[in-house]
């Protein structure tokens, strides 16, 4: 039986075997966790904002006083609507992936005892609900009467639309329609639910809360001015946005255009997730380098063993072992060592995951990553050992008869 023979031989090379197994174990732990992190990052970048990103752009101006707001809004709306190709212009406080305004803690009772979470408020003017292209799944869209003037940082008593994710979080298993929540003395009542609605950025609870948003129909005024949602045909949007930016000095000579914040929503999204993509790319690079180094280590050690055992191989060949036997010997040996490493690596992988869970908001490593990691490492081991094993299989039986 080759198996017993291999195990007996490995016992003679305990140190080297343990080293390679350790290396595989570490590689397994890093591979599983890094793979999981990459998957998490990429999943994050695929978040559904719920709005027609390709058709939307935002234009932001600053440097005006609250008393000028009404006049500014009127001039901007009229001026921007006159641009050819512009389908709609509305006043908003922000857009998905834009600047994070309107984060507020809400409670499920008027007394403020039952905390619901920190949500993102979209304080958006008439026309914006239709312009955003949100998909209603229950209840109704806001009508003209629902738009209320601002009180402190939101209308005093609003009829709002929430995302399905937020509804499930605040009222699990119950219909959210007609439900109420409060923020200080401000009161909100749910009239509709949309399939998806991402807030400008994830809140305190981390990436899981990125869809905790509330659409609050608000009349533009003192504290709601200066940020405009533009909608145009996707192909026409870059030109429309450019024209809009160029028109600002003519429409409102006193304000300052925020070039950096005035972008297409798809650009904002790209920028928002850029660091996640860079990080994912970097981790792919590290995994590649790591697998490369591990493979080189296997090649190095296997070559050494082949060289060391030339004579024994010769003897085995002389007493009847075929080339296939020798090849398989090294392949099985590698399979066993990598197997030890993987067994140890699974424990390490979960240990590393536990550490990462304390440092980052990260869920537990799903078991699915372990067989994948094991398969990758086994395949890598077999690939790395192939060349040295073939060299071993080519050792002629005559070597047995040579003394040195």
């Amino acid at each position, binding site marked *: 039986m080759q198996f017993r023979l291999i195990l007996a031989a490995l016992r003679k090379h305990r140190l080297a075997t343990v080293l390679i197994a350790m290396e595989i174990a570490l590689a397994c732990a890093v591979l599983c966790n890094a793979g999981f992190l990459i998957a998490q990052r990429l999943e994050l970048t695929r978040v559904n904002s719920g709005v027609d990103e390709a058709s939307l752009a935002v234009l932001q101006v600053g440097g005006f006083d609250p008393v000028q707001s009404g006049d500014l809004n009127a001039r901007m709306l009229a001026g921007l609507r006159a641009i050819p190709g512009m389908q709609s212009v509305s006043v908003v406080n922000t857009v998905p992936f834009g600047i994070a305004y309107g984060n507020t803690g809400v409670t499920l009772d008027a007394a403020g005892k039952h905390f619901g979470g920190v949500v993102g408020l979209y304080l958006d003017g008439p026309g914006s609900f239709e312009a955003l292209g949100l998909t209603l799944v229950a209840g109704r869209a806001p009508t003209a009467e629902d738009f209320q003037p601002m009180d402190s940082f939101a209308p005093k008593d609003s009829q709002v639309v929430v995302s399905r994710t937020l509804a499930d979080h605040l009222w699990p298993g119950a219909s959210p329609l007609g439900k109420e929540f409060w923020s*200080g003395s401000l009161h909100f009542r749910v009239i509709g639910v949309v399939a998806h609605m991402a807030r400008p950025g*994830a809140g305190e609870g981390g990436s899981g809360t990125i869809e905790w948003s509330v659409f609050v129909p608000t009349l533009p005024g003192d504290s709601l001015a200066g940020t405009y949602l533009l909608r145009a045909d996707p192909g026409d949007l870059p030109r429309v946005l450019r024209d809009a930016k160029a028109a600002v000095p003519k429409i409102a000579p006193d304000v*300052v255009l925020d070039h950096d914040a005035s972008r297409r929503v798809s650009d904002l999204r790209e920028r928002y997730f850029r660091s996640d993509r860079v990080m994912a790319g970097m981790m792919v690079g590290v995994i590649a*380098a*790591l697998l490369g*180094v591990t493979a080189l280590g296997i090649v190095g050690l296997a070559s*050494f063993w082949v060289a060391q055992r030339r004579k024994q191989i010769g003897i085995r060949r002389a007493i009847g072992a075929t080339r296939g036997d020798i090849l398989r010997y090294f392949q099985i040996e590698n399979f066993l060592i990598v197997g030890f490493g993987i067994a140890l690596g699974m424990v390490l992988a979960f240990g590393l995951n536990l550490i990462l869970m304390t440092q980052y908001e990260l869920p537990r490593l799903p078991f699915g990553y372990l067989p994948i990691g094991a398969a990758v490492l086994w395949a890598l081991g077999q690939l790395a050992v192939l060349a040295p094993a073939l060299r071993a299989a080519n050792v002629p039986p005559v070597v047995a008869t040579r003394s040195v």
Partner: protein
Amino acid sequence: MPSIAAMGRSYRWGDVMFGYYVDLALRSLKRNKALTVLMVLAIAVGIGASMTTLTVMNLLSGDPLPGRSAHIYYPQLDPSPDANPKHQPWDMLDYRSAMDLWSARRADRQALVAHATLKLRAPSVNQPPLLVPSLATTSDFFGMFGVPFAWGRGWSAGDDAGHARVAVISDDLNRKLFGGENSVGRTLMLKDSDVRIVGVLKPWRPSPVFFDVAGGRFSNGDTASFYGKTEDVFLPLGSAQDIAPSDLQWFTCWGDWDPGRQSLANAPCLWLTLWVELDSAAKVAGYRDFLAGYAAQQKSLGRIANAGNTRMMSLMEWLDFNRVVPGDVRLQAWLAFAFLAICLCNTVGLLLAKFLRRSGEIGVRRALGATRRAVFAQCLVEAGLIGLVGGVGGWLLSLFGLWLVRRQPVQYADLAHLDASMFFTTFALAVAVSLLAGALPALRASRVAPGLQLKVL
């Protein structure tokens, strides 16, 4: 007692042996080039990856005010009107508390800091108006934080009290508006008011911009924005309140407030930070007592509800509390060191293979009288040599790695450079790692029994 001559001889002898070992090591490394290259590569890649992340970590977790930070403190109290024994102070102060503490002048130096985005025009320069990030602060700010001036100086305590229309501008803004000339004495229009430039800063890049740090623990590790540029305009707090009351930024509010109608000074909002300089431990203790006393007094007046939770962290403690080193950077460091561990394992295995392959040769040397220690030392020299060469590779790779970091879309990208200390750390780490990797194989090699090996030959 050994004579000086004997000591000298033994030193020379050691020297000769070291040279001999290096020679042996070079021969041995040349004999099996593939294996040598493999080992050097493994160490270089491991060192390159860890040094890149270590440099970035070092850069981001460093002291923004070397030599001064130990004396800078961040007093906090809790202006919450709701009694709650578990309540922690918020990250910033309300106007009343901040003003009271600041005007008491109980510290060696003290500065209030608030943020605003202001519309700015330079009447003498033909450029469209800009929106500039600005800092509303008080006169001690510049002296306390050692802010370097190119021209002019900060304003006086009298300017604070008199809400003087003066400003200090950054090097960046000075270049943008005035082409980098001395612009002291020129006029800027902030919002609708004229202010006179009294000082122009030299390029100043504290990392992180510590006076912008607040709320870091709520940001899920996404703290790269703390490493951006400093504000462009610095002006007295009172002047900022006069010039642009609606442009001051607030951190959060604990009650209802209408920004359109009520000034921030009377709002239930947190928008100021107080920084104090305390030059001795006694003064620190004294200030803690003062802070606690103030909170107790305010509680007895009924303005605040929680007095027992005042807090005063040092600058570095405050940065730690806010976890300013971005989560991604810490993750990269974790990854890099796991990677280095793998490279280490790899090198141990390869060195073991290399040394034991020469068992015959070692047997001969042992039989001819080389001690175990000599064999051990020789093997370590070989490992150290690999480490040194690997270190050069690692240095080149970390330069490449930092170049990659500089191309990342993050605020601290332009800071990522290898300084002298990190350069030497690279080599120290490389040699240390290779010696560590070499110890076990060298020990095994030194245990080779001379007789057995000679028999085989």
